[in-house]
C-alpha cells in the first residue's frame, strides 16, 4: 500500500513537473473554446427555447474561462456577474413567462432557414477570405505577455481617460431603464374602433 502510494505520488510529481504551464494553458484553452463553440452550435440548432438559453449560458461560461486564461480576471468575473448571472437569467425569466407552454419550440420556416444560412455563409466566407489574405496585424497597444491588469488601474482608467464614455453609458442605461419601465407598465389600450356590420360580415366570411 505504502509502495503504491509512493509510486502514484512519484508519477504524479513527474507528470505535473513535466506539464509546463503552457501545456496546461493550451489544454484549458481548447477546453473552454470548444465548450463555447459547441454550446453556440447547440444554441442555434436547438428548437426548444429554454435549452437555447441554457446553451447560451455555456457559451458565456466558456468565454469567461477564456478571459481567465488571458489574465483578464476582472473581465471574466464581470462576464459571470453581468451576462451569465444577470442578463441571461432575465432572458430565461422572460422566456419562461411568455412562452405559452413550457415546451415552446421554434418552428423556423424553410425560407427563414435559407436566408439565415446564406447570411451566415456570406459572413463566414468573408472571414475566411480575410484570414486567407492576411492575419490582422495588431497595434502596439498590447500589454507585454503575462502582465496583470490590476483592478484599481482599471478603475482609474474608467474615471480618467474614459470618463466621457463611462458617464455616457450610464446615461444610456438610464434611458434603457426608463424605456423598459414604460413598456412594462402596461398602458391602457384604447378599444379598437367598433366594427361596422359590413366589416363584421367580411371578417366572418374570412374566418369561416
Amino acid at each position, binding site marked *: 500500500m505504502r509502495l503504491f502510494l509512493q509510486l502514484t505520488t512519484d508519477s504524479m510529481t513527474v507528470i505535473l513537473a513535466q506539464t509546463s504551464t503552457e501545456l496546461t494553458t493550451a489544454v484549458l484553452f481548447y477546453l473552454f473554446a470548444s465548450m463555447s463553440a459547441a454550446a453556440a452550435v447547440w444554441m442555434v440548432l436547438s428548437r426548444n427555447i*429554454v435549452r437555447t438559453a*441554457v446553451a447560451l*449560458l455555456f457559451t458565456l461560461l466558456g468565454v469567461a474561462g477564456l478571459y481567465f486564461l488571458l489574465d483578464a480576471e*476582472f473581465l471574466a*468575473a464581470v462576464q459571470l*456577474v453581468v451576462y451569465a*448571472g*444577470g442578463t441571461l437569467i432575465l432572458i430565461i*425569466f422572460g422566456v419562461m413567462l411568455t412562452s405559452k407552454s413550457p415546451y415552446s419550440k421554434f418552428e423556423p420556416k424553410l425560407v427563414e432557414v435559407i436566408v439565415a444560412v446564406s447570411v451566415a455563409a456570406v459572413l463566414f466566407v468573408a472571414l475566411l477570405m480575410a484570414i486567407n489574405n492576411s492575419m490582422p496585424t495588431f497595434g502596439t497597444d498590447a500589454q507585454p505577455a503575462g502582465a496583470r491588469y490590476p483592478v484599481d488601474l482599471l478603475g482609474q482608467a474608467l474615471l480618467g481617460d474614459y470618463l466621457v464614455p463611462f458617464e455616457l453609458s450610464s446615461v444610456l442605461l438610464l434611458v434603457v431603464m426608463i424605456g423598459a419601465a414604460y413598456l412594462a407598465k402596461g398602458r391602457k389600450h384604447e378599444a379598437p374602433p367598433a366594427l361596422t356590420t359590413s366589416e363584421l360580415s367580411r371578417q366572418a366570411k374570412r374566418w369561416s
Partner: protein
Amino acid sequence: MIEFFQEHPWIIIALVAHGAVLGTVAYLILLERKTASWVQDRIGPNRVGPWGLLQPIADGLKFILKEDYRPASADKVLFSLAPCLMIIVIIISIAVLPWGGEHQVTRTIDVTGQTDARLAAISHVPSVGVMVGEPKIEQIAATTDAGEVMAPARTLATVTYRYPFQIAKLNIGVLFILGVLSLAIYGVVLGGWASNNKFSFLGALRATAQMVSYEIPLGLSVLCIVIMFGTLDLGEIVEKQVSYWGHVIPAWNVFTQPITFLMFLICIHAEANRAPFDLAECEQELVGGYHTEYSSMRFALFFLAEYAGMITTSAVCVALFFGGWHIPWLDKIWPALSGGVDPTNPSITTSLTVCLIRTFAFFTKTVAIIFIFMWVRWSLPRFRFDQLMMLAWRALIPMSLAMLMVTTLVVYYFGTEGNRAYMRVGGKMAVALMIGNVAVLAGTMFISKLLPAPPETNRRVRVIGSRFNRTSVAAG
C-alpha cells in the same frame, strides 16, 4: 510524498477543503435538525449512534438507495443538468476562500549536477508561490568516512517562498464569488422548468425574481467593504482587519459597518433560499417548489448545494466582517498567530501549525454564522411574496446605496493618503463609519415615515379580535 505536497500545496488544500466542506454539509444537516428540535423543545435525532451522530450516514444511505425517479414528461437533459450545475458552481466558489493567510517556507534542495543551479532551485517553488529574495546556493564538500573530499561536491540551494493557504488566490476574489454564486440560480430555475410541473415552475419563477432582486443589495454591501480597503482580494481584506483599535477592539468590519453587515446577512439568507425567504419551495403553497419532482441523489445534490452554499456565503461573511482567520486577543499572548515575518503584512507566517489554527478559527466562525441561519429559519415565519420584494426594492437597495455613499465619503475624507495598498482602517475612520451607519439607519427610519404608503393590498387586515384591532370584542 512530502515533497510532492510541498511543491503543489494547493492540491492538498483543495482536497482537504472540499472534503471538509462536503463532510461538514452532512453534519450541518444534523445540526439543522438538532437546532429545530431545540427551538421546538424536542430531542431530535438520537437513534443512530450516540446523540444521533451517525444520522448523516444513514441519511446518505437512504438517498443512495431510493428509487431514482424522473417524470415521463420532464425535459431529460435539463432535469439532470440542473442539480449538477448547482452543486458544481457552489463547489467552485469554495476555491477563493482565504483559509489561513500566507505560509512562508524555506527549503533546502539538493541541486547537485544541475547546469543552472538557480533555475533548478526556482523550479521547486510551487506554481502558486511567490519567491522571497533570491535562492542561496552553496557548495558543500561531502567527505567520506576516511575524511577525503569527494568530487563533485554537493550543491545545495535554499529557497524561500510564500504561498497562500487557500486553493486559488485571485485578485478579484469577492467578485468571483459573487459571479459564481449568481450562477447557482440556474439550478433552481432549470430544475423547476424541466420538471414540467406547475408547482415546480412557480417555485422557479419565484426563485428567479427573488435572487435577482437580492443580488443587488448583496453586491452593493460588498462594495462598501471593497471601497474601504481598495481591493477585491478576500485574503487582503482579511489581512487588513488584523489589528486593534485602542489595543482592545479587533478592527473587524462588523464594528465599523454594522448596518452593512445586517444587510449582507439578510441578502445571503435570501440567496440561500432559506426561511424566511424560502418562497421557492414553501411546502404549504408549492408542495416542494422547484424540487417537487426530484428524488434520490438528484434531490440530494440540491440539498447538498443548499448547505454548501450556506458554508460559502457564511465564509464570505466571516472574511468580510469578522476578520477571517483572525483570533482576537490570543495573538497578544502568542504573536506568531498574527504574522511576525513582515510587520506590514500580518497574514504571512512561517509555521504550518499557525495556518492550521487559523483555518480552524475561520471554520469555527463560519459555523457560528451558519448557526444564525438555522436559528432564524426555525424562529421566523415566511414572508409573503410582495413583502419579500418590498424588502429588497424599497428598503435594502436604497439603504445599501446610501451606505455606499456614506462609505465613499468617509473613505475620501478619512482614508490614508498615498499608498492605498497598505491602508488600514484607522480609529478616526472607524468612528466616522460607525456614525455614518447610525446616521443612515436614523435617516432611513425618518424618511420611511414620509414615503407614500404602500399599495392597498399590503395593509394589515384588521381582523376583529386580532391584536391589530383595538375595538373591544363583546364578551361572551
